[in-house]
């Protein structure tokens, strides 16, 4: 008779044994099962005594409320952007009509659309992007007791200790991740990919990440991405995009496909086995 695994004892304690596992429960030593169920219940009761559920529930509810509020803001922003898009089209169309109606025929023929088009583009551009600066990511390598700034395509090795620093360029939210030559995606900021979008809020000042980390032996390259936005970033979607890139054969050079509203800065470092020292563009 084999001992039941922990997960199955947990299900038994909750009276939620799945049909596929009922045979295992029936074959188990009833005394052993009863003892383990009792031990789990004792452990749960002790946990609730030392860590009452109330404060944790309040914290979780606050986090969920914040997540829903951010989602509502994103929806409103998308609707607003769509309305502005239509407004831009309508403004262009109206301006074209005005030009055709009031400008002499010869002038309209000489400068087709030259008066109204910049105006229409200006409305959409100013409202949608609000560019204040250029987000930038800088990598440093520890060399003895000093930090060496790493330029793009510099050669790095397994075991090198790297430190990252960012400047969000006036944008409010950001995430930092890297893709390596073995197809792995590593999130550097925020600290967990389960973090809510609000956790992507970035400092307005140049900021060094709290953790340095050692490069592993993944071959060819390590490519860092700094994604920024004016709204909280959905980490799951962005990481999915990075993982899709990581699976590509040309992941060292290919563009990262991102949803609208996200900006990206990338920095590639070469590792042994990389064939070239080609460009990397922000």
């Amino acid at each position, binding site marked *: 008779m084999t001992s039941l695994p922990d997960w199955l004892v947990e*299900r038994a304690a909750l009276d939620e044994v799945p049909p596929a596992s009922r045979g295992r429960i029936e074959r188990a030593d009833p005394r052993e099962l009863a003892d383990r169920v009792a031990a789990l219940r004792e452990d749960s009761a002790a946990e609730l005594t030392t860590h009452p559920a109330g404060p944790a529930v309040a914290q*979780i509810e606050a986090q969920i409320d914040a997540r829903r509020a951010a989602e509502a803001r994103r929806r409103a922003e998308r609707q607003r952007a769509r309305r502005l898009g239509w407004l831009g089209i309508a403004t262009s169309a109206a301006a074209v009509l005005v030009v055709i109606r009031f400008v002499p025929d010869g002038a309209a023929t000489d400068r087709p659309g030259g008066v109204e088009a910049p105006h229409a583009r200006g409305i959409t551009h100013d409202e949608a992007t609000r560019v204040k600066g250029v987000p930038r990511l800088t990598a440093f390598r520890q060399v003895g007791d000093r930090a060496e700034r790493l330029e793009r395509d510099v050669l790095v090795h397994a075991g090198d200790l790297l430190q990252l620093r960012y400047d969000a360029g006036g944008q409010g939210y950001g995430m930092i991740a890297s893709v390596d030559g073995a*197809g792995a995606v590593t999130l550097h900021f925020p600290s*967990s*990919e*389960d973090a809510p979008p609000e956790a992507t809020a970035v400092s307005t000042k140049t900021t060094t990440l709290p953790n340095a980390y050692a490069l592993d032996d993944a071959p060819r390259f390590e490519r860092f991405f700094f994604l920024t936005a004016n709204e909280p970033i959905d980490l799951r979607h962005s990481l999915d995009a990075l993982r899709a890139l990581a699976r590509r054969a040309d992941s060292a050079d290919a563009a990262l496909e991102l949803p609208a509203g996200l900006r990206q800065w990338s920095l590639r470092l070469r590792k042994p086995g990389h064939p070239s020292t080609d460009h990397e563009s922000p």
Partner: protein
Amino acid sequence: MVLRRCQKLLGDEPAARDAMHDVFVQVLSHADELSDQAPSSLLFRIATNVCLNRIRTRKRRPEDGDPDLLVEIAEHTDPAARNAARAALDALFRHEPDDTALIAVLHLHDKMTLQEVAAEVGMSVSGVRKRLQKLRTKLHSLEAPP
């Protein structure tokens, strides 16, 4: 149950509590879409995925070391190649979709039968068997000397 699951996978009390918090945020954020059938199964699965994501995220931070979970899985594959398996598994899971890692953990770490894994992840038994077979084949090819 969720805390115990997170402690077992992460082996670290503060990280487990933090992960447990995330599990409930994820579950309650989608409360409208949940059915009331076997909530423990859903919590177990979400907790496993949250912990696997955390293991992936922290894997290269120097203070964390090698995750014991992957070593434990390695020990169930080929006893003759355990040392190579440690490095090979890291490469192996990098390229696999999330649910393959979940299937491997449920079967190899949690000792679920193929039928139990299939019920847990909503796949057919043959689908689970194929995934595990592919994983083993890939693992052995990674372990094979060049």
